[in-house]
């Protein structure tokens, strides 16, 4: 069984600071991580590998050359091969173009039974790339996967919904997107970390010359959407800071609440 896991290297959102004047990201000093949902996708692939003999796990990541750290980390968790897709012609791709590139790379890999992705990346939060890759490859898809079992030639998947869950059976090959509830990702093994930094076929660097994505469909120029400008949301309100003893402050708050038409204080007797 062949599994491909698509991952993305992202800046740790918690650490991200924004230049308020330019509305752009300050990249300096911000740690890069494997996107959290993608960690669950990797872990699930490795669990399938642990549970049977015939499993081969390939990590696939599109990103700048420094994203090699991400594929090496993913390899060290226990994958068989990790590929970084990096090329200047990919730069500025929106989700549509990114999915075009990933689909071309997956076709180039050739054989696959399951493609696992994280549900969404913490930088753009779009949740679009997984479904788009499925569509480009003409595969069935199940998103928001929180449980997964393989039964013969099908997968039985539990997917989260807004108010519960669904159990869906799908043939393979299939594309699945993982959420946090799916599993608890493991740590890389020390020996494998060393191996991840050795040269060899297990760590591969591909450009568009390898995967032959259609140049008229990718990159910033050929993306259907483009970002004209980014800016910092204006959220500041003129706020009043209350001071005084707690009882005074509580009294002041109640006065404010009582003055609101749309807020009804029903009190204890009414509940």
């Amino acid at each position, binding site marked *: 069984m062949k599994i491909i896991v698509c991952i993305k290297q992202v800046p740790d959102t918690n650490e991200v600071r924004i230049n308020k004047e330019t509305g752009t990201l300050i990249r300096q000093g911000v740690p890069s991580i494997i996107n959290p949902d993608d960690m669950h996708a990797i872990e699930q692939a490795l669990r399938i590998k642990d549970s049977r003999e015939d499993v081969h796990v390939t990590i696939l990541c599109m990103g700048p050359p420094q994203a090699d750290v991400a594929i090496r980390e993913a390899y060290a968790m226990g994958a068989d091969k990790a590929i970084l897709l990096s090329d200047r012609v990919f730069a500025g791709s929106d989700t549509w173009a990114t999915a075009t590139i990933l689909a071309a790379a997956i076709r180039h890999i050739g054989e696959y039974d399951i493609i696992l992705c994280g549900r969404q990346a913490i930088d753009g939060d779009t949740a679009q790339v997984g479904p788009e890759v499925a569509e480009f490859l003409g595969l069935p898809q199940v998103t928001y996967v929180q449980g997964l079992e393989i039964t013969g030639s099908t997968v039985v998947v539990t997917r989260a919904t807004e108010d519960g869950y669904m159990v869906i059976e799908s043939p393979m090959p299939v594309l699945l997107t993982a959420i946090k509830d799916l599993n608890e990702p493991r740590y890389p093994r020390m020996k494998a970390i060393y191996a991840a930094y050795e040269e060899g076929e297990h760590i591969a660097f591909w450009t568009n010359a390898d995967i032959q994505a259609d140049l008229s469909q990718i990159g910033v120029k050929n993306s259907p959407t483009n970002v004209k400008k980014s800016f910092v949301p204006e959220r500041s309100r003129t706020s009043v800071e209350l001071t005084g003893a707690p009882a005074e402050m*509580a009294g002041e708050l109640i006065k404010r609440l009582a003055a609101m038409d749309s807020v009804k204080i029903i009190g204890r007797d009414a509940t």
Partner: protein
Amino acid sequence: MQQQETQKYSGILVYGSHNDEGPSEGMLELLGEAGRLQRQMDRPCRVHALLIGDDVQRFAPELGWNGADEVICIEGEAYRDYRPDLYIDALEAAIEQVKPEIALILATVQGSEMASSAAVRLRTGLAAHCVELRFDQDAYVQVVPAFAGKILGDIYCPDTRPQMATIKKGMFERAEVDSRRTCRVRMLEVVNSRAFDPIRLISSVRDQKTEDVDIGSAEVVIGGGLGIGSKEHWEQLEQLASLFHGAVGCTRPALDQGWTEREDSMIGTSGAVIHPALYMSIGISGAAHHTCGIKDPKLHIAINRDPHAAIFATADIGVAEEWDTILPLLIDRLAQRKEA
């Protein structure tokens, strides 16, 4: 990008969700926004609402009262439960039929994957989780958040149609209901050319409905964060909320601590968007993940012991104090009050 004949596309298509009783609040909100866009256009524009399901035609009048000019129904037993392959075919077919210049899709679990797949098939752009839609001269601008709402970006989709967007529930306001408004109903048959036969739904489970107030539509929301400190303390938030018949919301860290089990009560980028009259944030530091889920409350009171907490920048009234010195007093006094 290959240019399409963009002028052949007109109107706005809205796809939301519904349950057995009717269209969801989120769908009506999208219709409200579609109406606002429609009024800003200097060319003829119709608002088309799409319903996919079993026996859904009965919801058409309500969509009309809320702003739809036409309701497109794709119905039949096969659509009773969600199946990605069939539903994506249906959305694609509706768009092919209507050829709208704008499509608004509710960012539910289902809507998000349907929109992504349909955008690929239709070779057009899709903007995720838009927080604002507007026209800049003639160009349609979709504003999307990035980095958990720390920055926003203006997205343009100049050469292809429809210009598609997903939108979270709670982001926009519904229109005033006009029950004299009527709308056309169009039934659409879909040939499922790409359905994957062996896909099947084995079971579908809905969590039991709680008596709790829905956080998305509550007039009063009490939000708790890591500063609350324990599950026992969390009960005070519930007490306070009950005095207003309000809802309790939480941040991701508070949820991770297990102080509440209600994942659907998480406010922010990966959770709910709230637009209450009153929001009280208690023990919440104010990370952008959280604050971008708070949409225009009339009054936001923040209580946090750290006077430098970011939450104060988004609040109307700030109380830089230990929350547990204020809240018991507040609960006590409010409990004694009754609405006159």
